[in-house]
């Protein structure tokens, strides 16, 4: 029983340590000034074509672009900032 408690404590410590490390890594990740200054149009051109042709802004409505933005972020694993800028650019350009 004592051994089990020891193992449980050790496991809990490892998991807690891992969570702390992940939080530090995630919160510590920042884009350089040059990357942060990129426009939505530039990010659209650079990131969409990694998998498929760059989409025409007029293909979907504003609400649809919001939904597709979330779907594509989970596929291509672009950053949140990139998704926001690309979706804003597509919505503005579809008018």
């Amino acid at each position, binding site marked *: 029983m004592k051994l089990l408690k020891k193992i449980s404590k050790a496991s809990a410590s490892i998991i807690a340590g891992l969570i702390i490390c992940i939080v530090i890594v995630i919160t510590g990740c920042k884009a350089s000034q040059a990357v942060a200054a990129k426009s939505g149009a530039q990010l659209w051109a650079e990131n969409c074509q990694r*998998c498929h042709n760059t989409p025409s802004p007029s293909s979907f409505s504003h*609400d649809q672009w919001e*939904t597709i933005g979330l779907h594509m972020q989970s596929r*291509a694993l672009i950053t*949140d900032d990139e998704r926001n800028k690309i979706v804003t650019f597509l919505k503005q350009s579809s008018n």
Partner: protein
Amino acid sequence: MNHSKKLLRLLFCAICIFSGKYTLLAQQSSADSALLDRVSTLEQQVSDQKQGESHFMVVGLATVGFVANKTTTTSSGISQKVKTNSMADADHYELSPMLLWRHGSNLLVEFEPSFDGYGLGVNWAAISYFATPGVIVRAGYFVLPFGTYNKRLAAGWIDKVAGDPVGVADLPPSSDFGVEVEGGLPMGNMKWNYDVAVTNGMQLLPDGELQGAGIVDNNKNKTITARLGWLPFQNSSLEIGVSGMFGKVGDAGSAYENLKTDMYAVDLNYVHNINPFLVNIKGQYNFIHIGDAQYANPADSSSYTFKNQTNSGFVQLSLRPTAGDNKIVKNLELAFRYGNFKTPDASMWSQTTSSYDIGLDYWLSWRTVLKFTYQTQNINNTVPAKLAGEANIAKSNSFFLQFSTEF
């Protein structure tokens, strides 16, 4: 008398002025009322159209086409030719509507049923929660983060040649039930991304093959799949990824209960405009290993063993002209793919396949493509005679005409 006439004239003029003014006022009031009615109607129409916090939409993909094939099989010095043509065969037809439901900007439900030559199935059905920048949590049935082909490149309107690379799309099984955490993060001028999944895992069959365990796990152990991606350049043109998949695959209580599998994949994606072409290079290599065990020989129920290792991979290059003004030329894309697939030696399904694809695509729009692909495959079957196998060599040549679109 004159005075009376003047008074009458003045009275007449006053009546005319007042009546005219009241007529104008009445007309203006009527116009205001009509305008207010119109505004009210428009407000109602806008209100009716408003989505609120939720949004639902259907997108999807459709792939249809024609396949002509000639296969020559040579066994013990005797050759046999078989010619077929289909519209299209099971591996080259798909209709998959994808249902997306978004609540606010944090919750997304994705469901993609799929009808192909093998029947009606489901590609994914999962709920994603966008918890915080760089962290997406998903639960349900989803595509495993093992390499990138299945998750990003398998759709017909994305793939540059007709069909999947041999041995990459289905081994290991592409989707599973479980929980996943993923995200993309900046790192100075670079980016990186991670994807970790805990799922039911796979099930080992008595002959040594693997299949998805399904919604009810075949043992108490969960399988961990993880991928780490790195984009070293500021323009995101290059991505290199490494993946691993680890877990027990044997049925609980069986002789294989503690048998483990370890699988690894590396993937590469490079897309960059090098004038006058958009250069697109993609590749993935999968290595699958299952621990040593005695397997059942279906020929005589005896047991036998072999090194249970499978390798598969592909490398693909495509070029699309970007310079010049000719629209027809700019819509063309030339693609080449080499694939290799090697199953375990001395197993029931021992085979080595080399595949070469060359294709010319015409893009009708950014999401609609007409593909002409010529494929040649060399398949070397080496199933040992003791397993009731018959060694043979098959050479297969196929021509594909394929139309694929995202809708």
